[in-house]
Structures are given as C-alpha cells and as structure tokens.
C-alpha cells in the first residue's frame, strides 16, 4: 500500500514489497563473534517467518492486545516484533535480565501494559519463568508464554491495520516503581522513518546497524526498523559483546560496510579508552561509515575529536559525525545532520548563559550543535513557567509537534494532558510534546543545554536520583529519612556520579568507614548496577537543603 505521495502507509507494506521485488536480498545479519558466527535472513525468509508468527498470534487471539517480547539480542526478536506489527498485536519490547531490581521493573511493566502473553525463547522462559511466576503469582496475574514450541494454525487471515492504531509501547526510562510506556502508532513509525531517511540522505538498500540493544528506541527504530523500511540490511551484534571488546563494533562496521551506525556518547568513549594498541586493526576500514550518529545522552566534542583522531588512520572521516537529538516520545528522531557536517559548536558568553541568554563570545561555554530539525516536525523553545514562546536568543524548554510525536504515555491521562497536549502562548493550534529538555535554536539548528527534570544521565543510562537515594537510605547505618543526596558532576568533560550519605552518629564513631562505604556501594550496585565515582559519608544534618527540605544538589557538588 502506498499513499498519494508514493510513500508506504505501513512499515510492513514496505517489507512485503521488498520480499516480492528483492526476495534474495539480505534483510538482517546477526553476528555474535567472528564472521563465521553470522546468521542471515533474506527478505523472503524474513517475511515467511513473520507471516507464520503473525498467524499464530491471530490464532491465539492476541489481536489488539499487548504482548511482551523478552528476547536475548537476535533474529527471533526481529521476526516476532514484525509479526506483532503485521497481526495488529501491540508489542512491548523488554530487556531480558536476571537482576532482581530489573525484574521488578519488568513485572511493573507487564502489569502496566496489561500484557496478556510473553513472547520468548524456550531457554529464556526456563531462565525467567520461575522468578517471574513467583512475582506475578504474588499479584495473582495470569500470563501465557509463547515460544518457538507454540504451534498455531495457518488457516487464519491477517487483518487490515489502521495506520492510526498502536504499533508498540516503548517503555522509557521511568523510575523502577513508575515505568512510562510511550504509545507509538504505525503512523508515527513511518513518519519518523521518512525523517531519518531525509536527515541521513539514506538511499534504497542502505546498510545500517551496530551494537545497540533491540528493546531501546535508538536500537529498535534507528538500527532495526529503518534499514528494513529502506529495503536495506540490518546488521547487529549483542550489546554485551561490544562492552566486552569495543573493537568488535568497528570490525562489524568495516566488514559489512555499514553506512549508518549510532551510539550514545559513551560508546565512542569506550572505543577511545579501551581499544588498545595491542589489538590487530590492520584490516579495519571505516571509510564506509557515512553517518556516525551520536545521541541519547549529551554529546561531547572532546570524545568526538579523540575518536576521530584515533581512527583517522583506519579511514574514519570526522565529518561523518552526526550529533542527534531525539527520544522515544517522538518515536525517535527530532534533529540531526545534514550528514557530512561533522561536529560543530557555538561558543557563548558564560555569565548571560547561566541566566538563559544566548550571546556569542570568543571564549566561554561551548554547546554542541544537534543538527537540523526534521522538516515534518515543529520545534519551539518555550518558557517552561509562563508557556510563552521564547525569543531567538533565549534558552527555554524544547517543545516538539508533528506526526512523529507519540500518542502519549499509557495509562497516564494527567501527564498526557500536560506533556503531550501542551499549548504554546500565543496559541498556534498545534499540540506539543514537552520534552523536559532545555535548549535553543540558532539558524535552524537545535542546541540542547540541559534538563528541567531531575534526571541523571550516566554512561548512557538515565537514573533517577530518588531511586538511588532510597537505596542508600535503606542501609542499616544510614540516618534514613531524607539523608542521602545522589547527583552528577562534571570532571574532565566526563559525567561522574556522586553521593553524600548521612550516617548515624554512633555508627560513624564506631564502625569502619571503608566497610560502610563498601556496604553501600555493593547495595547500590545490586539494585541499580551503577558504581559511584565519589562517596562521602557525613554526620546527620550536613546535606544542604532548601527550607522545604529539598536537597540542594548544586550545593552538594561544592561539598564534593
């Protein structure tokens, strides 16, 4: 199905078309280790597998219902996710984890999305079902499991999908206790595909991929769906294998001639810090890498130039850098490019900047250009207090409107009213998403300067200080109450995580401080898988607070 503009109406329309027109073309390659471990699917093989699974889902009666996808990175996820799209089943991609805190989040999501079934592999089911069953049972919640062993009946027909209906729910970095599921429609997907295509100048057959997880918006929409929409090839590897040895990502790009590959800033930093001179990179050729997208956490110019310098000898072109801005709430892409522009910054006068004013200066604060705003989207800079549209030289909240903006958060009418249906003053008849990010627009380019929400982004993960503070306060010698402050600070251009924790006077006098620190570190690691760069133990009443008892994080930074 193509519409009057010659564009596909649904992502699956595109994939069906390619299965007919280029059946032997490789659609996906999944490689765990060396090249010999690669598993491939052609468009024909992909559509056959997707059709079978879609019919199974229809046969089992899951149309219009939510189904969780709990898969380790692999081709199974691709097939089953697309099967959901084809069958009109609402996909809820989740992270497979054995960590107790993460499992708790998984349970919360299963309940929030009213998940009727879990699509997974037999192995993963065995690994998780006991723990999940225990947790779910406690809430007397019945959920079915669908694995490769679940048999269906091919004698069902596939439905017609309304473009405005829900395609999937992307759970975003809400806190553990309160996950936020972004409702993404089939329309949203296609609109964002077109935006990415334009920004990156992608052509039919484009090769895209890397190490990003499949259950995350950047990995799912950018790496997986986009090349399939373009009749290209999706190349991918397990994220853990990248973390273990970052050079594997670069080898993947080089071997498969990947044109677009994205990573949060820390991925590039990993390559700079952890690819040693001892590694054999002799056959590495990165000249194929046209678009090196950097997004989802603040983009560091320092990291980019170190990366470019280190890998120039292997054909990496610094102009391929493509700082980008986006989020699950806008399906993915908001701004970036045009491609081959590289990294650019503006330098602003420091004093006015802290007051929210943009004044160019010779020296001062450098802000990275996050690229051109997608043509199909409207971005406004708005005063978050008065909701009045800001002047050109003023920092305000970034508001986004357009067909890529999702329907809202599931089961959250209050937040949807305030954050997805915001009206700017003077009114312009559009509904806006309030991103919670601060920034400004200069010559049509978007610059992001910070966040309104109290959210910490550390090494590519969004953390809520409140969650971690709660863990610290639960430690036996903590003074409890409001006696911990978790915050980030910048050192050598890196975001570091610190905590100040008030310890009961008696324990502070009698217990070993190193022991206390270690206890807290391991407690925090167990629950959040994050390590503090700095940890300060103090007497009760030391943490700077406002009159209303709120922790003053900026004053805490001064203490550290």
């Amino acid at each position, binding site marked *: 199905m193509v519409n009057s503009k010659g564009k596909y109406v649904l992502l699956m329309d595109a994939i069906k078309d390619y299965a007919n027109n280029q059946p032997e073309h490789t659609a996906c390659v999944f490689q765990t*280790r060396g090249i010999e471990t690669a598993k491939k699917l052609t468009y024909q093989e992909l559509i056959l597998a997707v059709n079978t699974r879609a019919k199974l889902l229809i046969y089992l009666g899951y149309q219009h219902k939510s189904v969780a996808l709990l898969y380790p990175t692999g081709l199974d996820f691709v097939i089953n996710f697309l099967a959901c799209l084809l069958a009109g089943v609402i996909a809820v991609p989740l992270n497979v984890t054995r960590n107790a805190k993460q499992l708790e989040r998984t349970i919360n999501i299963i309940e929030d999305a009213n998940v009727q079934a879990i699509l997974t592999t037999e192995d993963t089911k065995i690994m998780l079902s006991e723990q999940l069953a225990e947790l779910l049972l406690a809430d007397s919640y019945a959920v079915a499991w669908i694995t490769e062993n679940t048999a269906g009946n091919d004698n069902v027909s596939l439905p017609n999908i309304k473009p405005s209906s829900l395609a999937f729910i992307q759970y975003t970095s809400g806190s553990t206790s309160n996950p936020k599921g972004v409702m993404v429609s089939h329309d949203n997907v296609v609109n964002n595909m077109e935006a990415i295509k334009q920004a990156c100048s992608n052509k039919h057959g484009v090769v895209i991929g890397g190490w990003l997880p499949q259950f995350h918006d950047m990995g799912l929409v950018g790496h997986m769906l986009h090349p399939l929409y373009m009749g290209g090839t999706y190349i991918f590897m*397990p994220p*853990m*294998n990248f*973390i*273990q*040895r970052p050079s594997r990502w670069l080898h993947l790009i080089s071997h498969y001639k990947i044109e677009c590959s994205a990573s949060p800033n820390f991925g590039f930093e*990993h390559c700079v810090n*952890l690819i040693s001179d001892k590694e054999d990179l002799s056959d590495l050729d990165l000249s194929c890498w046209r678009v090196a997208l950097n997004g989802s956490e603040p983009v560091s110019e320092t990291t980019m130039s170190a990366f470019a310098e280190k890998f120039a000898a292997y054909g990496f072109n610094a102009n391929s850098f493509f700082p980008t801005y986006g989020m699950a709430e806008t399906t993915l892409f908001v701004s970036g490019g045009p491609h081959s522009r590289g990294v650019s910054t503006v330098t602003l006068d420091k004093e006015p900047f802290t007051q929210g004013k943009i004044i160019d200066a010779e020296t001062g604060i450098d802000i990275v250009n996050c690229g051109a705003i997608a043509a199909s989207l409207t971005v406004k800079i708005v005063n978050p207090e008065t909701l009045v549209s800001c002047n050109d030289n003023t920092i305000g909240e970034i508001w986004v409107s357009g067909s890529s903006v999702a329907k809202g958060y599931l089961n959250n009418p209050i937040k949807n009213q305030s954050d997805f249906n915001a009206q700017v003053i003077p009114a312009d008849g559009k509904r806006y998403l309030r991103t919670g990010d601060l920034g400004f627009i200069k010559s049509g380019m978007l610059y992001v300067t910070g966040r309104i929400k109290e959210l910490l982004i550390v*090494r590519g993960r969004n953390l809520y200080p409140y969650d971690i503070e709660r863990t610290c306060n639960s430690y036996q010698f903590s003074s409890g109450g409001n006696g911990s402050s978790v915050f980030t600070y910048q050192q050598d251009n890196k975001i570091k995580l610190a905590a100040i924790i008030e310890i009961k006077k008696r324990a502070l006098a009698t217990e070993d401080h*190193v022991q206390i620190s*270690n206890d807290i*570190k*391991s407690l925090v*690691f*167990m629950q959040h*898988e*994050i*390590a*503090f760069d700095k940890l300060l133990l103090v007497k009760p009443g030391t943490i700077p607070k406002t009159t209303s008892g709120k922790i003053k994080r900026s004053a805490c930074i001064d203490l550290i």
Partner: protein
Amino acid sequence: MNNIFCKDTLISKIAEYVAERVDGFSKDLHIDTSFSRLGLDSAAHVQLTAVIEDYLQTDVSPTLAFDYPTINALVNYLVNESQNNINKAS
C-alpha cells in the same frame, strides 16, 4: 576452552585489571571480595572478561563476572571448565 593455563598468572592478570580501577586493592586481601563491593560497575564487570579472553585466547561469556563475582570464584570456575574439556577430549 581446552587449553592448559597457569592459574596464578590468570589471577595476577585479573588482579592487575582490578588494581588499576580500585584504590587500595590488594590481591591477597580481596581475592574473595566481590567485584561490586570493590566498586566495579557493570561495564567493568564485562570488560574484565576481555582480560580473561586475552590470556586464554578463547571466547568467554561477557556475563561471567556477574555469575562468578570474586577473583577466586572466577578462576576456579575457569580451571574446572578447562579440566572438564581436557577430560572430554581425552
């Protein structure tokens, strides 16, 4: 994994990696202290397995240091694995 390796050398390699990241780390004191207690975050847990890969010249699961979270547990697991493989092979 059916190569024969020197257990003490592997312990030293892992200890060297941890010592680079943890102030006050001592191989003798902390051989049974969990990596997370020492302050290694999850990325460091994963990268630790690359040190093992380099020494053993074989693929090692990236999650191994989560499953065997102390130097002793990790090395003993690898010794047993390699012993099992040798027995299977002979």
